């Protein structure tokens, strides 16, 4: 019988109270009434190990004592091959399971996995309840990426009474991978109970709780981990991920910002912070972060494009220009295609802000750098229509039609151009041809019919 001291229980009780308060209202601790919880003293019953337990351990045979001593000296001198050679002189049945275990472990350490596996299995044929053989074999299968077999042997080791945190932790990991979070939680808890200081088990438990959508438990665990390691950026990132799962964007943002302060440099995280700031309307901080993320490394057009889309969706054209101008310093280091993309984005901002001469210049620069930039051709054509520069617009649409990726959009754009020019016959012919090629454009027949009606009306009025 074992008892926990009153002081420990008191400490536990206080923790429970604080934890309860946190779960009820994380931001208003002062408003939470004082809750007193009285626990009855727990009783622990130690398991009574009897005879069969001996079958779970292996000892060497008395006639092997001398040989074992020699081998110990050899192993201490790092002569594993010599020990192996000595053991291989025997038939497996002549060696005790303990000596066979030694042989298997040496094979394992020398990465002779097939022989190690055979030897472990031989041991288990003779002693099916040998915990060490099950846990070692589990490790071996884990190394060989045979997850199902590894799981089987770890679970046997646990069923036979293994009290190694590693075995419980590995079982937790395999259960999480093979069977989902619910089967992993208990194993990770066991591992964490055996090794409370090992962050690996707590992180495994956290992953399992999160995947099981047990967010309250996950948050409580995470809070405890953060309290113990407040300067660990990964924990703050975990908290951010958890908050995102719970759609608590403010908490997610605060946690991500904390991770950044603590030195997290991952570009994706920085992007996530910026995105959250945009979402919550703090545009200046978002732009700072975007600029920082672009300054910190070589300019990446995919990222720039992503930021461009976020900001334009929010109508933040001035911020887009700031961002593009900040990014412009590294433009010469980009390839011609990427430079073409950059000037296209700039041209779009110019159009939006009514800076037409700049827009024209940037469109031309974009097309000079990459004459096959389909998006530039389509955007420049649309821009030309706005300026009633129909000849140029038709030319750019026709150039875009030569590019398979842009053909459909370019033909539709050209049809629109003809309508703008009131050349309904040309528009009708083009739309009929587009519909023949792309029958999935289900709205076209209506447009075609409309144009046919317009033409009919026009012809009758002419007559």
């Amino acid at each position: 019988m074992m008892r926990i001291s009153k002081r420990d229980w008191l400490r536990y009780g206080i923790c429970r109270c604080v934890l309860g308060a946190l779960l009820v209202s994380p931001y208003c601790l002062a408003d939470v009434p004082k809750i007193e919880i009285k626990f009855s003293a727990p009783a622990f019953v130690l398991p009574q190990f009897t005879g069969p337990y001996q079958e779970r351990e292996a000892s060497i045979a008395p006639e092997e004592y001398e040989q074992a001593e020699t081998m110990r000296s050899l192993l201490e001198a790092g002569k594993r091959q010599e020990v192996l050679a000595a053991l291989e002189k025997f038939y497996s049945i002549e060696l005790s399971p303990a000596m066979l275990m030694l042989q298997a472990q040496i094979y394992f350490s020398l990465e002779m996995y097939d022989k190690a596996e055979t030897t472990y299995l031989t041991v288990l044929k003779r002693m099916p309840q040998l915990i060490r053989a099950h846990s070692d074999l589990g490790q071996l299968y884990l190394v060989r990426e045979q997850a199902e077999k590894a799981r089987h042997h770890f679970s046997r080791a646990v069923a036979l009474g293994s009290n190694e945190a590693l075995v419980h932790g590995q079982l937790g990991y395999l259960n999480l991978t093979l069977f989902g979070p619910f089967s992993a939680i208990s194993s990770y808890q066991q591992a964490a109970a055996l090794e409370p200081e090992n962050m690996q088990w707590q992180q495994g438990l956290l992953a399992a709780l999160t995947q099981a959508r047990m967010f309250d438990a996950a948050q409580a665990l995470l809070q405890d981990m953060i309290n113990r390691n407040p300067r660990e950026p990964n924990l703050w990132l975990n908290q951010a991920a958890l908050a995102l799962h719970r759609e608590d964007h403010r908490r997610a943002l605060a946690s991500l910002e904390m991770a950044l302060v603590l030195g997290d440099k991952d570009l994706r995280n920085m992007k996530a912070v910026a995105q959250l700031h945009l979402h919550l309307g703090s545009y200046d901080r978002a732009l700072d972060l975007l600029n920082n993320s672009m300054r910190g490394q070589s300019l990446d057009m995919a990222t720039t494009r992503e930021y461009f889309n976020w900001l334009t969706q929010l109508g933040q054209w001035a911020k887009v220009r700031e961002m593009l101008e900040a990014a412009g310093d590294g433009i010469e280091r980009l390839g011609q295609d990427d430079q073409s993309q950059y000037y296209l984005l700039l041209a779009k901002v110019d159009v939006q802000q009514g800076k037409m001469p700049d827009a024209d210049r940037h469109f031309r620069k974009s097309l000079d750098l990459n004459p096959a930039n389909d998006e530039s051709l389509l955007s420049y054509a649309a821009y030309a229509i706005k300026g009633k520069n129909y000849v140029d617009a038709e030319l750019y649409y026709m150039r875009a039609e030569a590019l398979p990726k842009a053909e459909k959009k370019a033909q539709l754009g050209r049809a629109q151009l003809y309508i703008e020019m009131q050349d309904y016959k040309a528009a009708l012919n083009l739309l009929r041809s587009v519909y023949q090629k792309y029958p999935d454009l289900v709205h076209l027949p209506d447009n075609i019919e409309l144009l046919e009606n317009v033409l009919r009306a026009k012809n009758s009025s002419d007559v």
Partner: protein
Amino acid sequence: MLVGVLASCGGNVKNQQCTGVDWDQHGYETAKAGKSPRDFNRYRDGCGDKLEAGATDTYLDGYTRGLVEFCTYENGYARGFSNKSMDNACPVEMRSKYERGYKVGLLELKEKINMLKLRNENAEHEDAVDRSNSGATPQ
């Protein structure tokens, strides 16, 4: 003709059959007879590369199965009672019952011998008493 002679050897090397043996049964019987697993050495050494693939493992499987039946209290007792030295054929994890039987057998044998000795001594003593009662002078 030569081909026929070679074929009739059936994989034998130096009169040792190297293939076609029921290795599992052979191992089983070897263990049940209380013989050492090294009995297999004659195949291993005699056949070399000619030994059938997997023969050793199959032999050892059969041998282990045979040991389970051999390493019993009764067999240990019989060996002790026949006053033979205790061999180490039984692996450590199967040894306890066999050893206990052996010790009991040996003990009972000693007791039986002691009983016989005692009985002989008594008989001799009774003879001597008889002889003195009948006035005969001991030689």
